């Protein structure tokens, strides 16, 4: 495993730039994009909180929806109390989510961390399912099947009526939380968390209480997940038991590993990419989740470090890299990736049309035949050679280009790796597979 954080000189500058964009840009965006950005912030914080447990402590949880949901419900209860006249400042509402996440996370974490590996994953899964199956029947706490709803109350001259106000509230909380999470990695306790991942036995031999440490890490991760859930509750003003569903837990796993769990900001990157893509393409295709699953599996197969891992790998070797020689093969691989993606998208969208309900109606109108269908602004014959030959040709051409480029890239990286410290060339197939970023998965 590579070190989790890459303290680079340019990082603060880059972060300041991102923050400036996040502050300055939204007023000029339309409402839909503002909403999408709120979701990006929430998903990003959730993924970073999740990654504290997964990437840094090495504990793979499949039930983080539980703490996200708990944070949301706790916040809604507080919002309802505020509606009934409790004097509580609206901007501080996420504190309820944090407190509930911390409390529930401490209890759940105590039990879950009694086990490790696969068993830990199963306990977390069971806890989330426990909430998911209990919530629809628990009227008082989770509002039954309909869930809870409330209104954001004005406070101190702020109405909290517009999406923009909610956005800035979320931005404030996410910035604070991310800064705290980052600061956490710099503390001795943060280093202990990493040690737990890399060699738990040694941590115990050094005299630390491994179980207590894991419980604290779990609780902190759950606390920040609770903050993310709270922001979701504030933004949507409603929540029901579906927040506990396996799809929410799955979403954060996808975001985190596609973004890269070994890099601090990787998960946020993944969350931002997936959430924005979801916003952009959900109107265009019904198969977005299929693409998401495909991207995830491709990343797992060919770039286990995720997007963040690839970026970090290049940054670390930036002085040794000869970009004039790499640019060609990289462009070739990018083109190949684009062709493969185009072929896949074409195929999936065609199938989606052909097997969809709309086409069934068309067939009935045409008397049971196979009338041509429309996709990408053109008419296609379902039995025509072009309809299936074109995507297949795109796909195969892309694969060919990637294979070519990959050979060149692997050779170039081999020279980079062996050059500086005079290490023997070739560190096994894993290393070269890791370094060759095959086909941009998009």
């Amino acid at each position: 495993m590579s070190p989790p954080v890459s303290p680079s000189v340019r990082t603060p500058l880059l972060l300041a730039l991102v923050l400036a964009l996040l502050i300055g840009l939204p007023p000029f965006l339309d409402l839909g994009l503002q909403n999408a950005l709120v979701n990006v912030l929430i998903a990003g914080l959730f993924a970073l909180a999740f990654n504290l447990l997964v990437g840094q402590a090495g504990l793979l949880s499949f039930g983080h929806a539980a703490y996200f949901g708990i944070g949301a419900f706790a916040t809604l209860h507080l919002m309802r109390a505020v509606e009934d006249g409790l004097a509580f400042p609206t901007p501080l509402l996420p504190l309820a989510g944090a407190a509930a996440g911390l409390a529930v996370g401490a209890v759940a974490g105590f039990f879950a961390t009694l086990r490790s590996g696969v068993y830990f994953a199963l306990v977390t899964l069971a806890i989330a399912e426990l909430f998911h199956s209990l919530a629809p029947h628990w009227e008082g706490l989770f509002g039954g099947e309909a869930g809870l709803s409330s209104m954001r109350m004005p406070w101190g001259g702020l109405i909290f009526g517009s999406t923009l106000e909610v956005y800035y509230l979320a931005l404030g909380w996410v910035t604070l939380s991310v800064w705290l999470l980052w600061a956490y990695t710099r503390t001795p306790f943060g280093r202990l968390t990493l040690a737990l991942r890399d060699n738990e036995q040694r941590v115990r031999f050094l005299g630390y209480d491994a179980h207590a440490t894991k419980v604290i890490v779990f609780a902190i991760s759950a606390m920040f997940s609770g903050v993310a859930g709270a922001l979701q509750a504030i933004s949507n003003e409603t929540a029901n038991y579906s927040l506990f569903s396996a799809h929410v837990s799955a979403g954060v796993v996808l975001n985190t590993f596609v973004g890269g769990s070994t890099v601090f900001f990787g998960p946020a990157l993944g969350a931002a990419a997936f959430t924005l893509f979801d916003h952009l393409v959900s109107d265009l295709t019904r198969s977005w989740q299929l693409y998401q699953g495909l991207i995830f599996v491709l990343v797992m197969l060919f770039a286990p470090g995720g997007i963040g891992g690839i970026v970090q790998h290049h940054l670390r070797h930036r002085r040794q890299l000869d970009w004039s020689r790499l640019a060609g093969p990289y462009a070739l691989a990018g083109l190949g990736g684009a062709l493969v993606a185009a072929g896949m998208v074409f195929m999936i969208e065609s199938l989606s049309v052909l097997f969809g309900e709309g086409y069934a109606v068309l067939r009935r109108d045409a008397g049971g035949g196979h009338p041509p269908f429309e996709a990408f602004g053109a008419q296609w014959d379902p039995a025509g050679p072009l309809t299936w030959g074109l995507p297949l040709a795109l796909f195969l051409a892309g694969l060919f280009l990637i294979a070519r480029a990959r050979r060149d890239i692997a050779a170039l990286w081999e020279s980079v790796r062996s050059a500086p410290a005079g290490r023997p060339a070739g560190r096994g197939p894993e290393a070269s597979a890791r370094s060759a970023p095959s086909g941009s998965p998009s």
Partner: protein
Amino acid sequence: MEFAIISALNGVIYGLLLFMVSAGLTLIFGMMGVLNFAHASFYMLGAYVAYTLSSLVGFWAGLLVAPLVVGLVGLLVERYLLRRIHAFGHAHELLLTFGLALIFEELVKLFYGDFPVNYQMPDNLRFAAFTVFGTDYPFYRLFIGGVALAMFLVLYLLLSRTRIGIVVRAAERLPSMAEALGHNIPLVFMSVFGAGAALAGLGGAVAGAFFPTNPNMALELGVIVFVVVVVGGLGSLKGSLVASLLIGLFSSFAVGIDWSLASLFDLVGLGPWARSLGGLMTMTVSSISGTIPFVLMLVVLLVRPAGLMGERS
């Protein structure tokens, strides 16, 4: 009495169905250490493939061919996907199967739509086996149970009485030693993965004709199957049979019981007080019947992580 007998019958049959799916999962875990998140997807694929084939070549042919198709998918998954990333560790394999489960679900939605399909048993199987308390008991339920029992018998004899069984058990216990003795362990792994997938596919093909066949069936059953495998002991075939029956009976009895925590307090005269608290106190067992398996799983994981019949933890 009527409730008890009908519930017991339904519980045993549901338990046997759970066993059909969990048998492969527990074998694969015991052998390769891979907890296969996509296993319940093989169950779903079995139902959908059998549905497609039954309209083309008839119900029985579909029932026979569907497990083979699903087993082939399993073989390919092991050979070309899982084996590739074996070097990155179990966590990565777990994540890969997790991604595959998502893809299978979405593919099914792509081809068959996001709603149940009309996969039905043939009419000549649609009769009552016997009548209890004036209710006809469908023969097909017994058929599901019979297939599961036959499968258990074949699997048990195969593993305990044949040469193949010895190699498979050796590969499970000490893979490197078995390999040193000249057995092709990667081939054994691939075959077991494929066989496990085929068993789940058979379960889906048989059960899909009776229970609804929809894109959620993998998710719904998948979590319960994890519970079964954990309670029975990861890697133990007998354990998963016992646990399947246990969970099956639990679920079918719980539906008809309207006790709540408050009725426990009634015994010591605190019932009204407990009812006034509401919340958890007044929830009836029937309304939280879906929760009970998870409570059971948590208790087993925390008290006896090796499961009822598992040897390792």
